[in-house]
């Protein structure tokens, strides 16, 4: 039975003579779980943000008219009548000043700050941008067509790079966690070398010995990872208000249900990883003896 090792008898558990939660293993795993969950949450939030930004920028364009609202109505008509344009709306000046105020403070709302007129529109596939730009410039000289995707491309690239960085950090931390478990398993083997020798001498198989260690490390890992997960959840909740503000700036990106499911799976995945690594390490170490 695959999980028989989880259900050892009290007499088998007494063989190691150590209760769970002794030693540094649960603490190491708790710290690793905490770190991995924070980094993973950041990575997932970045992915969500990148998705929201990319979706918002896709097929969205602006026409910027440098001399303010003087040619705005004519430009709106020129854009709206062009083939391939789906939805046209001028951006009200107060809306632009409100957005600027978020970034620049009260100075953004000051009338002394000149701002261009903006027309926002969505394009259908096949829109001839060059023709549209010529058509707008005919009624509003100096007008400029801005593709949101081009403007936001550097930001999106940065977000994707940060996302991959977070993924790499998760892999690194999980590897460090596995290495810590290997060291813990070897330490436990050294501590219990005499008991193992006696068991082998009496006819115990490697698997029988391994199951004792595997179960202890699995319990340590489960308790440690759950403790780390609870701590990470509390920190993430505490950060939620700030994240809401940042999300608002980025267009309202938050962690979705799938993201939360991934985060919830991390402690269980780390427990499974620790258990598997412990089993492999103990079996490998035992094979060096007769």
């Amino acid at each position: 039975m695959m999980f028989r090792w989880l259900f050892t008898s009290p007499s088998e558990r007494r063989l190691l003579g150590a209760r769970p939660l002794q030693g540094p293993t649960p603490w190491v795993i708790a710290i690793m779980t905490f770190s991995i969950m924070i980094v993973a949450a950041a990575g997932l939030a970045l992915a969500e943000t990148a998705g929201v930004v990319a979706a918002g920028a896709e097929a969205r364009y602006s026409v910027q008219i440098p001399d303010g609202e003087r040619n705005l109505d004519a430009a709106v008509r020129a854009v709206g009548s062009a083939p391939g344009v789906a939805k046209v709306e001028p951006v009200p000046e107060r809306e632009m000043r409100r957005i600027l105020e978020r970034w620049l403070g009260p100075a953004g709302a000051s009338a002394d700050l000149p701002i261009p007129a903006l027309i926002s529109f969505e394009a259908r596939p096949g829109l001839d941008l060059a023709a549209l730009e010529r058509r707008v410039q005919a009624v509003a000289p100096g007008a400029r067509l801005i593709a949101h995707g081009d403007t936001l491309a550097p930001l999106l690239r940065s977000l994707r790079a940060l996302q991959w960085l977070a993924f790499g950090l998760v892999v690194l931390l999980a590897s460090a966690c596995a290495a810590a478990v290997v060291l813990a398993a070897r330490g436990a083997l050294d501590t219990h070398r005499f008991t193992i020798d006696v068991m082998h001498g009496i006819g115990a198989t490697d698997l029988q010995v391994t199951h004792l260690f595997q179960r202890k490390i699995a319990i340590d890992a489960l308790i440690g990872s759950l403790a780390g997960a609870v701590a990470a959840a509390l920190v993430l909740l505490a950060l939620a208000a700030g994240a809401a503000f940042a999300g608002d700036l980025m267009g309202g990106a938050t962690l979705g249900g799938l993201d939360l499911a991934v985060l919830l799976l991390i402690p269980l995945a780390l427990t499974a990883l620790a258990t598997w690594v412990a089993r492999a390490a103990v079996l490998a170490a035992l094979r060096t003896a007769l």
Partner: protein
Amino acid sequence: MKLLYLAQRPTRGRIALFGEELTDAARDSLPPFRRRIGVVFQDFRLIRHLSAFDNVALPLRIAGASEEKVEGPVREMLAWVGLADRASARPPTLSGGEQQRVAIARAVINRPELLVADEPTGNVDSDMAQRLLHLFTSLNRLGTTVVVATHDIGLISATPGAQMIRLENGTMLDPTGTLRNPPPIAYPRGEPE
């Protein structure tokens, strides 16, 4: 002795036990053979944090016996070696003689086919030594091959017919294996291995 109970591989020569050639046997194949061997170590090799009961029960549990099938035989064996009231005692709290009796109880609890004992009477009184000798003889009659390493001349003289191999300064003085403590006894099913 270590070669006999499969704790070491020979650097030369061969090891055959229970009719099987085990010199180069895969290590995964050794546990079933070890379960057929009982060993009384000179230094007892009891697990310190386990009770006398758990130490004696270890071979049965490793062999997969259920707890119901462990309790009775272990209590009986502890009573036989005079430690019924010390079942829950840990080895460090037992005297040398008591530890040796626990070690002997552990070695014979699962009726091994081969019993290897290193100085089994070294720490016990003469009465217990006689009882151990009786136990070994009884096991031998039931088919267990008993190999005893001892300096105890009394033990040797009390085992008539036993095959002896005399070692002196690490050299086997009688490599033919024909040295016997007279008078030899006749085995009904032939000589033990």
